[in-house]
């Protein structure tokens, strides 16, 4: 059972929190509805556990305020939810990817108050009031962030799964002043793994964008 499945039903439906997505039923919406049904079953299990006198402590929730890509979001969260799961499952910001879920691959990299972190290894409740920037927050309307454009120009990806994490990490790498040479970029981007090994393109893209900013 995933963390998400344990959330009581009334919080498990992210529909109310979604932006004005189109009215057509997407693959993801279907999955989310299925998730809602699963969590109804999970809720009864959780209730049973809570009633047991020597079981683990009862599941509890708390209110957390996050500013995500400039918008303030008030959320009732299970204490156990990682920042990554909240972004993906509650706020529908699925650009941030879940790779290893143990801080080793970097696919979940986002900026918290301007600093790059692996969002899988931190609890959302620890970031009350924080400003979060995800891959969805980089472009200005239809205008790509310079590093997004550079990734396209330099073929900085093949399958694309690690790309949002690479780009968020690259944005921070440039801002930190660490994109000074290909060797430095390799070292300071080493927290982001690319199984397609698009590294030459990634390094070229970061170097190019660093030169332009």
């Amino acid at each position, binding site marked *: 059972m995933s*963390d998400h499945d344990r959330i009581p039903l009334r919080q498990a439906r992210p529909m109310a929190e979604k932006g004005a997505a189109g009215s057509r039923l997407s693959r993801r919406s279907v999955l989310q509805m299925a998730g809602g049904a699963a969590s109804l079953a999970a809720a009864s299990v959780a209730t049973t556990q809570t009633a047991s006198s020597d079981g*683990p*402590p*009862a*599941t*509890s929730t*708390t209110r957390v305020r996050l500013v995500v890509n400039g918008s303030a979001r008030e959320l009732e969260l299970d*204490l*156990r939810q*990682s920042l990554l799961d909240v972004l993906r499952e509650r706020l529908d910001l699925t650009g941030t990817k879940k790779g290893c*879920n*143990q*801080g080793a691959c*970097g696919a979940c*990299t986002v900026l918290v108050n301007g*600093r*790059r*972190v*692996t969002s899988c*290894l*931190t*609890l959302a*409740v*620890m970031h*009350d009031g924080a400003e979060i920037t995800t891959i969805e927050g980089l472009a200005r309307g239809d205008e790509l962030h310079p590093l997004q454009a550079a990734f396209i120009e330099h073929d900085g990806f093949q399958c694309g799964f690690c790309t949002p994490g690479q780009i968020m*990490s690259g944005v*921070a*790498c440039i801002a*930190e002043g*660490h994109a000074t040479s290909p060797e430095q970029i*390799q*070292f*300071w*981007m*080493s*927290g*982001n793994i690319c199984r397609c090994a698009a590294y030459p393109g990634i390094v070229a893209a970061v170097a190019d964008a660093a030169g332009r900013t």
Partner: protein
Amino acid sequence: MLPFSFEKVRTEQDAIRAAAAGARYIAGGTTLIDLMRDEVERPERLVDINALPMADIRADGSDLVIGALARMSDVAAHPETKRLQPLIAESLIEGASPQLRNMASMGGNLLQRVRCPYFRMLDAACNKRDPGSGCSAIEGLNAGHAILGTSDHCVATHPSDVAVALVALGATMRVRGPQGERTFPVEELFRLPGDTPHLEHTLRPGELIVEIRVPGGPYARQARYLKVRDRASYEFALVSAAVALETEGDTIRQARVAVGGVGTRPWRMRAVEEALRGKATDRNAFEAAAHLALEGTRPLSHNHYKVELLPRTIVRALEMAGGTA
């Protein structure tokens, strides 16, 4: 992940009170959350100490003073760290990834749990996770494990890089707990596994690491950290060495040497340091001294290579510090 209760505290007193009542401190969370998800760690209460004012980094005379909540990246980038103790900066940068260094606190770094795969494998015997269950690594896959300070009950290495540098430099740490404050060498934080490998450190219940103090010394500016690993970055050490030299011309007045990746705790090499005193800064002297590092080593079935790699790593680090590498 099992359910837990969560409290965010604003004062040290509240933090210590919660921990004395059984709560676990959480700062960066990069070890704890990972292990909670695997149910290797099962705290019922967490106390978030990130709001405590313990993240300062400052100079006090020639000492470098680091708040326990300072993040690895901030310590490494701080001008006073680079000015007073470049070895601390170098060892920090060689650890983890940029993202993790932005999250992980200095206090948490010292208390991080081992990376032995069996520790995380709930269906494998591990005396550290489940006392009395046995050690799967001794007869299992142990290429990454320790050759110093091991016991028949545990052979896992301490994974920190900066701890190796702190031990080499004779750093001390200040802790506060229900019984008040005390200060002791960082080296004394770490226990040998013996027959109680589940007890990893010497903190008393409820004690909170407040700050780390790295004393200045004439060797501080001539100091290097060399980390040998399976890839060039973002990997734990197979063998690492933190060395610092005070020289006069070509003669070594004093040396500090500690190693990582080979010990069940960060390992100060006092015999090597003593052998270097008064010697010339050349390869022969380095090799003769580094050979003394092998005293007491007990290799396992897959990590004999560390016996050869350990003195070589020390020699290379000495050459780097001495400017001859």
